[in-house]
């Protein structure tokens, strides 16, 4: 139906006269999260990333005839914890199915997944959406399904030798597939959802969320439609490898679809991949044919039962959902609310702190150990100075060698007026470049102590007054802002080390108009 609408719109110019309706974009996500586990979903082989090729392969993973799957309890528990944290209904009985397709890195010719009866359904995620330059708002997306499934191996193609090689280390790794309803509208919303999901999974320790290792993979379904119309034909964008790419890929794809329609084209149901280098989505050739996966119940795994009774305990045969729910830690949104309540932070500040777990850790530990410094000074320094520095260098906060102790030492010196804010900022850079040297040493080494000596400051001020006669004149005529120029001169003369509070006091005293 939607096809015909688009076609008519594009081929019958008369219709162009009808009032234009607004286009809407609809985005849904499917996330594959690798469950953090020592062994695979159905076999005992290891899961470490970067192991030598084909070294973590049990007979089952290579589909050696006669081998059977045995479900890894730890993975079931992780799946349940995740489901609970995302507000899902955990199903008392879930089942495994075979999904058939031929691919060289799929040794069995089928993937074991949960199609008919998943581990959990009906979850919900509410998360803050951060768009640069816009006000933060909260968005909610339904989580339709959370299912357990095994990963495939990896194919490596050698175009020159015309050979394909297969690495089965990944084959059989445990995955949680999270299928979200198409409740989102923009790339930023999608990126924010994933960002929040990462925070949750990391708190639960059910997934490392290292996207660069493929531990978290995101596919996006995208369509556009005019207001009041049913949903449009969707495309699926696969292989999105970073949170930033999610936003970019989806924004690109929405715009591509809008342009296609504007030019009279038609959106086809296809799978596209994100080309991060050229920042565009491209159609994937081998996925064009609609597959019939010939789903069938996995006969070698009995239905997976869990105990839903409140207050129950886990036994050897049966995992208790109630017992697992106790193990769920504080979730990011709870932390934000706690921060707002406990430290009177603005919600935006709480969001920034929680979104960077390291920053939050620093904030909490510095607050504990340095109670004399006002909270505001701490988070301002963390966000405006430390985080900004990391962002400027395009450095992940968790990859930065500067630890909470370093920042605490800086703040201690700052608060004790031993150094000024400029020096504090400088120290971040110095610490980053000299990770083995302590804060105190760096202050001495680079002579960063603040100048507080009144005589010294008065001398500097006198010099500045001499250097800035024009500003002095303006100031004395009543233009109070002119004082900044003189203060700036003092800063320059003191190599940014003068205590500005004292400088201002001193200048005001010196430049006070003579009594009549």
């Amino acid at each position, binding site marked *: 139906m939607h096809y015909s609408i688009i076609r008519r719109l594009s081929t019958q110019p008369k219709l162009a006269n009808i009032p234009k309706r607004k286009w809407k974009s609809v985005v849904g996500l499917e996330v594959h999260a690798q469950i953090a586990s020592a062994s695979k979903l159905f076999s005992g082989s290891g899961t470490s990333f970067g192991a030598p090729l084909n070294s973590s392969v049990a007979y089952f993973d290579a589909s050696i005839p*006669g081998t059977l799957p045995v479900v890894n309890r730890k993975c079931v528990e992780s799946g349940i914890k995740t489901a609970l944290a995302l507000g899902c209904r955990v199903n008392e009985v879930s089942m495994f199915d075979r999904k058939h397709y031929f691919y060289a890195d799929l040794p*069995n010719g089928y993937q074991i997944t949960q199609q008919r009866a998943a581990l959990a359904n009906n979850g919900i995620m509410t998360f803050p959406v951060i768009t640069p330059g816009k006000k933060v708002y909260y968005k909610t997306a339904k989580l339709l399904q959370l299912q357990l499934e095994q990963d495939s191996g990896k194919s490596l193609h050698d175009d020159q030798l015309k050979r394909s090689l297969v690495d089965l280390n990944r084959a059989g790794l445990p995955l949680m597939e999270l299928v979200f309803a198409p409740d989102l509208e923009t790339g930023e919303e999608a990126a924010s959802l994933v960002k929040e999901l990462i925070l949750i999974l990391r708190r639960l320790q059910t997934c490392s969320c290292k996207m660069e290792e493929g531990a978290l993979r995101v596919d996006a379904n995208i369509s556009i439609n005019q207001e009041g119309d049913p949903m449009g034909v969707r495309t699926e964008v696969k292989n999105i490898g970073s949170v930033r790419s999610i936003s970019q890929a989806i924004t690109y794809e929405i715009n591509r679809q809008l342009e296609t329609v504007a030019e009279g084209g038609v959106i086809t149901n296809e799978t596209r991949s994100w080309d991060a280098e050229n920042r565009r989505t491209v159609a994937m050739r081998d996925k064009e044919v609609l597959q019939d996966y010939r789903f069938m119940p996995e006969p070698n795994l009995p239905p997976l039962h869990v105990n839903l009774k409140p207050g129950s305990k886990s036994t050897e045969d049966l995992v208790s959902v109630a017992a697992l729910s106790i193990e769920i830690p504080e979730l990011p949104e709870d932390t934000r609310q706690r921060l707002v309540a406990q430290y009177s932070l603005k919600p935006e500040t709480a969001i920034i702190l929680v979104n960077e777990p390291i920053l939050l850790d620093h904030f909490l530990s510095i607050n504990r150990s340095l109670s004399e410094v006002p909270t505001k000074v701490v988070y301002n320094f963390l966000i405006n100075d430390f985080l900004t520095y990391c962002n400027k260098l395009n450095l992940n906060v968790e990859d930065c060698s500067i630890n909470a102790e370093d920042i605490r030492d800086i703040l201690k010196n700052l608060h004790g007026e031993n150094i000024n804010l400029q020096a504090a900022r400088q120290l971040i850079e110095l610490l980053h470049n000299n990770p083995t040297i302590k804060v105190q040493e760096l202050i001495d080494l680079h002579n960063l102590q603040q100048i507080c000596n009144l005589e010294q400051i008065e001398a500097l001020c006198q010099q500045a007054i001499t250097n800035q006669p024009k500003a002095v004149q303006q100031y004395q005529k009543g233009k109070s802002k002119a004082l900044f120029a003189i203060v700036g001169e003092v800063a320059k003369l003191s190599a940014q080390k003068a205590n500005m509070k004292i400088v201002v006091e001193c200048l005001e005293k010196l430049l006070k108009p003579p009594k009549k």
Partner: protein
Amino acid sequence: MRRHLQWNIKQLTASYAEGQLSPRRLTELALEDAKNLKTLNAFVRLTPEKALQAAEDSLKRYQNKKPKGTLDGVTIAIKDNFCTEGIPTTCASKMLQDFVPPYDATVCSRLKKAGAVLLGKTNMDQFAMGAGTVDSLYGPTKNIWSEELDGDRWRIAGGSSGGSASAVAAGICYAAIGSDTGGSTRNPASYCGVVGLKPTYGLLSRHGLIPLVNSMDVPGIFARSISDCVDVLNTVAGPDTFDSTTIRKPYKNLTLPEIDQINLSTVRIGIPKEYHCEGLSPEVLETWSKVADLLECAGASVRQVSLPNTAASIFVYSILNQCEVASNMARYDGIEYGHRASDERSTEQLYAQSRAEGFNEVVKTRILTGNFFLLRKNYDHYFEKALRVRRLIAEDFLKVFVASQEDDRVDILLTPTTLTDAPLYKDFAGLTNRDQCAVQDFCTQPANMAGIPAVSIPIRLSQSGLPLSLQLMSNSLNEQLLLTVARWIEAQVEFDSLQHRLNLQSTL
């Protein structure tokens, strides 16, 4: 000639313990017999070196008075669809002709652990798809009861575990392992005149059994007596962490009462009327009613029962079988193991060619049909519907075994195993694989649908001098009573599984 063959396993191991006979000597004789009886084509591969080594080890244990258990030094053959570490396991197919498993099936490792001597791997229909052991890469297995073994007047051994049945019937080994998906153990047991047990689904581990239909496959046991069958069962049964479908409850060894201690007065026998079917030979029918009479005379209550969905069973079996086959066979792509064609122009071409060359027509047909049934548009109409009817069939059994009215309840069902004695190869080979299975599995496959245990026991000889057997079935995990009744019948009918040796003297 071979006096020891008349012994049962307990007598054999007692003679080892007394030093009368050595496992080494017995194994040598067994290997010699296997060679002499090569014309049967019971084995696809003998493993003399490993067998003699195992026998040697066993001998030492007996000399040290520390035998491992009831099967120490007992010769056993294994169907070629059970993985055996370091020994090719082919499923009698070109696809797995060169496949050497890196591990032992649980059944094999438990037998080894108990000290059994594994003689070799036995013939079968390719991937166990058949009821005659005629569709093997290595050629058909012959029935030792045949009027003649040369020319074209020889009888089939039944299938798909024909090699195992044949090896036990010929006295080459004391017991053999087969598999049973729709009757593949009981059918050849019936034709070859030996005991064939299909245990409760989940009582024996399938780990290492190359699957046909995962939800119905069970390892089966061939022996020349119920007592030997129980000894093997006690060794291999019980939970296995490698197979999630095994019953978790710890297995308790079966001990059957002595014949004179068996009291049939509390046993209720059911005769399901639907098993009196088209094509049932008068001789089998006569055997059936004679044994029923025998039981009744001994005090058992015998009455007719109805399993109304029996006739649907073969169709349901056919659909489920083909669907699982299509899925299970998907792994054979020539990449990790198995036959790989030389055509490497593309991955798809390599798959297609490897599979085209590696599978026979029967396998290919089932893959094609199974995939058709599993298509999204067909799934509900075929697979889902078949599952529903399967439940009805299982409920039929439950209704007679666990009837709400105590009076309606029976403990054991008595039926034919096969409809006739062993067919001539030339008659059997003329039928399509579909017809071969549909006719031959009629009485056996319902037990696989329901997962219940069933045993085939030889009763007497037909006019052609071939074994006629009957089947007993019980509710799940009631092997104790099932085999007790079987043992009682065995004692009454005194069938001699080795009687054929007289027939064969001229050809040997």
